[in-house]
């Protein structure tokens, strides 16, 4: 097997937001590093407030990290404005969570899909642009495209809207797509269709995906590797099936257990997690960890390499 090259590398990303009033700043992202390989789908899994969306926004350049760097296709893109960085940024696109919010209600489908082409000046004639829009709409199964092009977002169902958002992200031919919970606002019966579409496009175009989700079941279908985030840090990363079958970090195990079998989670709840506030020095998960020992409250653990792609941030592993 030839070595697969990394298309995206995030190193030691940090981001603080000012706290409410005079309170201390909130550390949204706390030293996050990961790589996305050419053609793979990396999942970022975590609960709300774990910093996964902020990480995604830093990657595509919607937020500037306080420290750390994003390197995309060999070019440092975070906080840079020189032409090479800008050109690289164009080859990343984002799909947002809520297709009811992310599409401008005053624009038609064809205007929405054409917008990236217009901004990046990727066409010569209007005919060429129209052609690109039609191809893009048909690639997301909105066929025939002519039926949808003059509609406004409110005339589409949630699933169709998200397809428009995908067509819009892909029309400029990006090599990396960052998808932030693209199915969490959709009904389950349409969700599967969108996931299948993303998988198909990923394979057909050898796309790399950074897939943000809170749902392990979605991560299982989409992602070959996942990184689990807790309180702004990656606590474990590895192959999806490995983490589901045999995660090392107590938080990963709890997250998987609760989704896999709720009844047995209830029966052994004390074994997985306890009540507590994330705080203080040491391991951020320690106050909720049923296995925490003295060391866990004193020293923050480092990410440790366990073999293959498996990394974990826990004193006890």
């Amino acid at each position, binding site marked *: 097997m030839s070595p697969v090259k990394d298309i995206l590398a995030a190193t030691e990303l940090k981001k603080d937001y000012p706290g409410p009033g005079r309170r201390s700043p909130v550390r949204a992202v706390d030293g996050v590093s990961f790589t996305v390989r050419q053609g793979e789908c990396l999942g970022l899994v975590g609960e709300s407030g774990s910093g996964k969306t902020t990480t995604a926004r830093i990657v595509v350049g919607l937020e500037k990290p306080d420290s750390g760097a994003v390197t995309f296709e060999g070019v440092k893109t975070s906080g840079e404005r020189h032409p090479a960085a800008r050109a690289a940024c164009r080859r990343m696109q984002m799909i947002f969570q809520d297709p009811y919010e992310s599409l401008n209600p005053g624009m038609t489908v064809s205007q929405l899909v054409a917008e990236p082409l217009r901004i990046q000046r990727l066409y010569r004639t209007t005919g060429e642009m129209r052609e690109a829009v039609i191809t893009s709409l048909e690639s997301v199964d909105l066929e025939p495209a002519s039926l949808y092009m003059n509609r406004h977002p409110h005339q589409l169902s949630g699933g169709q809207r998200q397809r428009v958002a995908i067509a819009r992200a892909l029309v400029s031919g990006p090599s990396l797509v960052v998808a932030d919970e693209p199915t969490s606002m959709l*009904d389950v019966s349409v*969700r599967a269709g969108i996931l299948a579409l993303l998988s198909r496009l990923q394979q057909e175009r050898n796309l790399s995906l950074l897939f943000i989700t809170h749902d392990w079941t*979605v991560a*299982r279908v989409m992602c070959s590797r996942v990184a689990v985030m807790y309180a702004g840090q990656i606590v474990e990363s590895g192959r999806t*099936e490995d983490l589901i079958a045999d995660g090392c970090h107590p938080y990963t195990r*709890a*997250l998987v257990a609760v989704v896999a079998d709720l009844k047995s989670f209830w029966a052994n709840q004390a074994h997985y997690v306890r009540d507590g506030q994330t705080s203080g020095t040491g391991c951020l998960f320690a106050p909720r960890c049923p296995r925490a020992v003295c060391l866990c409250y004193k020293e923050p653990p480092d990410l440790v390499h366990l073999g293959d792609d498996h990394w974990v941030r826990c004193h006890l592993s």
Partner: protein
Amino acid sequence: MNILEVRNLTTRFSTARGIVRAVERVSFHLKKGEILGLIGESGCGKSTVGLSLLRLVEPPGRIVTGQVLLDGVDLMKKSESEMNDIRWKLISYIPQSAMNALNPIYSVGWQIREALQRHEGYSLGRARARVAELLESVGIAASRAGSYPHEMSGGMKQRAVIAMALACSPKVVISDEATTGLDVMTQAQVLHVIKTLQSRLGLSMLFISHDLPLVANICERIAIMYAGRLVELLTVDQLRRQPLHPYTQGLMSSFIDLKAPLRRLESIPGSVPDLTDLPCGCGFHPRCCQCGGDCCCKAPELVEVEPDHWVACCKVVRE
């Protein structure tokens, strides 16, 4: 024994776009001490069922026909002031996004006490004692009664709202997406509280949700709703063994099981129909892969195919 019986409930909304047939001839019953799951996708009318039972449908909505028998008494025949006494005391409601259902300027204890003093005529001291007991029962320390909503986490607020719904020991509780929007761990905790209360207090509950696998953990029976109608009513066992309606089958295969070997994810083609413009015949037929014969002209009725298993599907009836 059935604590709640719903017969031919029909609720419609007259809007500029036409009549929204949110609930069409829905019938089901809730046994005493049981949690019945009411499952459907957004816009299928499941929340309207919940609101109709409490007679809280606001204009332009209107309950057109139907009976709602609570312990044999028809709520549809009650006057508005009688309903005010019945709500909360006999039948209570846990609203969607209960996290935002609390008033931010009163303490949680005060808000629960209000119901007790208003409905049960409790004295302040007695109400305080009851609030303490209620909070403990949902796993919140009684000392938190003085806390304001912003001082509590999402899961705690959710449990406080459950405590509030239980304040007057109602006969039936209707919970509308009570755990939607919570993180999985918090959700597990809240569901555990509900399940524990059910076995301890013999709670009867209609649990409205869109999450089929989740609900299968806390219910004995499940009603599946599609485009304003009940399409299948079955026990959790039957659901796992052999659901009969193509929509139920489609829903089941849209979910992924973390324990089972990985399989291809199936989706149901098309999308949920507009309730102002329902397809004729069976509401599901344009999306149904087993559609044929009279599916597109005859609306199927719920038929009992085995004990406790009802299904509304022309194909199932044909066979």
